[in-house]
């Protein structure tokens, strides 16, 4: 994506279209690379993000059944 501008000294290698630095560690989308966090109980292993999503869905499902719907009288 960045391109080296001909004639620059080359220390800050990649220069964007408008002269901004394109790949730096602060702005790079490639910073958060690690193995991820895993939770385990016995044989059961699950990645933290997946676990959160499933728990959130279960909670929303429970709330959808339990909470009264606004604007209606629960007659039946």
């Amino acid at each position, binding site marked *: *994506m960045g391109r080296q501008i001909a004639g620059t000294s080359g220390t800050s290698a990649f220069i*964007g*279209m408008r002269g901004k630095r*394109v790949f730096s560690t602060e*702005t790079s*989308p*490639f910073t958060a*690379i690690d193995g991820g966090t895993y939770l385990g109980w016995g044989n059961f292993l699950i990645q933290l993000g997946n676990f959160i*999503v499933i728990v*959130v*869905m279960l909670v*929303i*499902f429970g*709330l*959808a*059944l339990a*909470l009264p*719907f606004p*604007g*209606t009288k629960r*007659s*039946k």
Partner: protein
Amino acid sequence: MTSRGSGREPQESGAGLSWTGRSRRWLLKRLPPEKLLPEGQPSYVASWIYVFGIGAIASLIYVIASGILLSLNGPAWYHVSGLGRFVNSSHLWSVELFFMTMVVHLWGKYWMAAWRGGRVLTWVTGVISFAVSIVAAFTGYLLQTNFDSQWIAFQAKDALNAVGIGAWFNVVNLGQIFMWHIVLLPLAVGAIAAFHVLLVRVHGVVPPLEAAESDAQLQLTDRERSDTKSQGGGL
């Protein structure tokens, strides 16, 4: 699906009509305007569990709108600029929302056996939209063009080659996957979801299990089941 409806037709006046006329008659019979855009719903629809289908539609609209922005500006924008990365992230998070609302919707429909009363095709189009959405999300992850997407692609290519489709759906061909993600799969998800919702309008919302007697279609299919021998709606 529901045989020919011969008994309910007052006069069979379709004889002299062209195919456009016959299509119009068929469409108006199946989906008259008051069923397509109803002004009221049965009282049991006043529950949060019926909101998740619309939640999935709303998320899908945001997914597609943000995706259009991304494709208009390209990766040199959405991988680099602040606003671009914000739109890129909101594209991902709306997909998360889409899947969460779709899954809660699916659970709701499963536990109320929403395929009852001739609604099998609604369920089946739901299943298909779920499957196609997973493929769409998968191609999206491949477009991150980072180590994650490289890892995903190289894990997936073995599976896809093993089932014999790797030559046509080549996960290490970024250009091809891009086209699947921004053209073919969004069109497919959109078309299936639209058909799904039209089917809901055609059949009307299924009543809860305890209120099954309140549904004309459930009664009708019961009668049809005893009239015509078996063949009644799958499952």
